[in-house]
């Protein structure tokens, strides 16, 4: 076991060595999260990839985790920062449970707590390099929100991070309904994830879908989507633009 003694080099803006203590770029990253509210709660989908730059290095990373009794947290961006956030939330949930008084943290409280954390880190020029999706159900009410690494925070009926914003949300805007059944919700998410699989180079074909309802959280086993690569357009991809440049 090795222990690192934390070094306090002071203010990162004035002291050159202190710069090495704050986040400048992400290293191991997760790609999109797509989440929707449905009839009984919230569904959240993510793939299990951790990219190291352009290398698809890790293929078994769970990017969606249960928080307390009522919430689900999904993250894209730096995986180590996501793990740090999970530690903060672990402490939060522990303290909440220790009160043992019948009150419990709901998804709204967790979302707002995370917003405070992300925004405060951004103000210190030392962000947690993640876009977080927080979904949950409490007292029959579904909740779905998002926080970015600069502290931008909002709620919506369907959210997506990263490439998902560009590729998945247009599909969701057209096809989402408030009374989606579980099966239809999963089909809708799979449609979005398939598009991301085809078009996002950091996506891998191994995904998990998590569900949260009043009863609790279930995270599916990893599975892969059927893909089709025999489209005519793929047979001779440069047909329309021969030659260099």
């Amino acid at each position, binding site marked *: 076991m090795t222990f690192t003694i934390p070094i306090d080099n002071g203010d990162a803006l004035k002291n050159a060595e202190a710069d090495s203590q704050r986040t400048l770029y992400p290293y191991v990253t997760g790609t999109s999260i797509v989440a929707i509210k449905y009839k009984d709660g919230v569904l959240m989908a993510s793939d299990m990839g951790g990219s190291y730059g352009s290398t698809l290095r890790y293929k078994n990373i769970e990017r969606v985790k249960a928080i307390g009794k009522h919430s689900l947290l999904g993250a894209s961006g730096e995986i180590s920062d996501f793990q740090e956030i999970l530690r903060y939330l672990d402490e939060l949930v522990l303290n909440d449970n220790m*009160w043992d*008084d*019948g*009150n419990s*943290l709901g998804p*709204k409280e967790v979302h*707002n*707590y995370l917003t*405070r954390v992300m925004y405060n880190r951004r103000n210190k020029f030392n962000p947690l390099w993640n876009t977080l999706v927080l979904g949950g159900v409490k007292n029959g009410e579904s909740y779905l929100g998002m926080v970015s690494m600069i502290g931008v925070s909002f709620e919506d009926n369907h959210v997506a991070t990263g490439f998902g914003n560009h590729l998945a949300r247009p599909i969701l805007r057209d096809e989402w309904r408030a009374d989606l059944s579980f099966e239809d919700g999963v089909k809708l998410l799979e449609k979005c994830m398939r598009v991301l699989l085809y078009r996002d180079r950091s996506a891998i074909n191994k995904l998990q879908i998590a569900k949260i309802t009043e009863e609790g959280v279930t995270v599916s086993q990893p599975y892969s989507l059927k893909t089709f690569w025999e489209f005519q357009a793929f047979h001779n991809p440069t047909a329309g633009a021969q030659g260099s440049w």
Partner: protein
Amino acid sequence: MFRNQYDTDVTTWSPTGRLFQVEYAMEAVKQGSAAIGLRSRSHVVLACVNKAQSELSSHQKKIFKVDDHIGVAIAGLTADGRVLSRYMRSEAINHSFTYESPLPVGRLVVHLADKAQVCTQRSWKRPYGVGLLVGGLDESGAHLYYNCPSGNYFEYQAFAIGSRSQAAKTYLERRFESFGDASREDLIKDAILAVRETLQGETLKSSLCTVSVLGVGEPFHFLDQETIQKVIDTFEKVPEDEEGEAGEGEGEAEAAPAEHGDGGAGDQDVAPMEM
């Protein structure tokens, strides 16, 4: 309670296991003017007697809003009460800001109690000389707590603190079983009746009491004098200046020996009844 050699500072135990300074602090609570709290499943009412130093001065503020869903009534050293109310407001608003959610009142009273306890275990401090009736709402419904200078806190269906609070407590003990399901209006009426008990014969006027309400769907607010007077009029049938009606009022009052019945004549020279 008499002076003894173990009561000089709060960090000295007596041989019988008492901290006299803490007990003296609780005496200060008993000397303050009365404050009463009661709750139903969905509402909490806090009421207090407004005693001014003299006719020239205003009365002290004894009920404070802590948040939309929490109020506190104090008895004892009002200055200490004000400081603790400010602390409570700060805790409530910090929680609200971080979690966008109201602070559960049960957690607030624990913070308050722990703060009071610190003052019973530091030689350079003194206990807070104020008792607090904290009423509030959380996920499990309406709650009423009493915080002591000793750092203890208790939950109550109804309670009264301060001078002549025993009279109010006796009244509340007779009636508390109906509070749980009582309507908001009945709860307010019971609170004002409990205040009347502490007045020991003085006429009950709306200017003498302050009443505040909070409940499900109803943020903390004070009742205005008009509303209070209307409630008083439903049971205090005789206005003080009308001698003609006073005769009838007295007749009714004498027929009901449990009541402190000199309200009719508005006669302040009648000696307060012994309890």
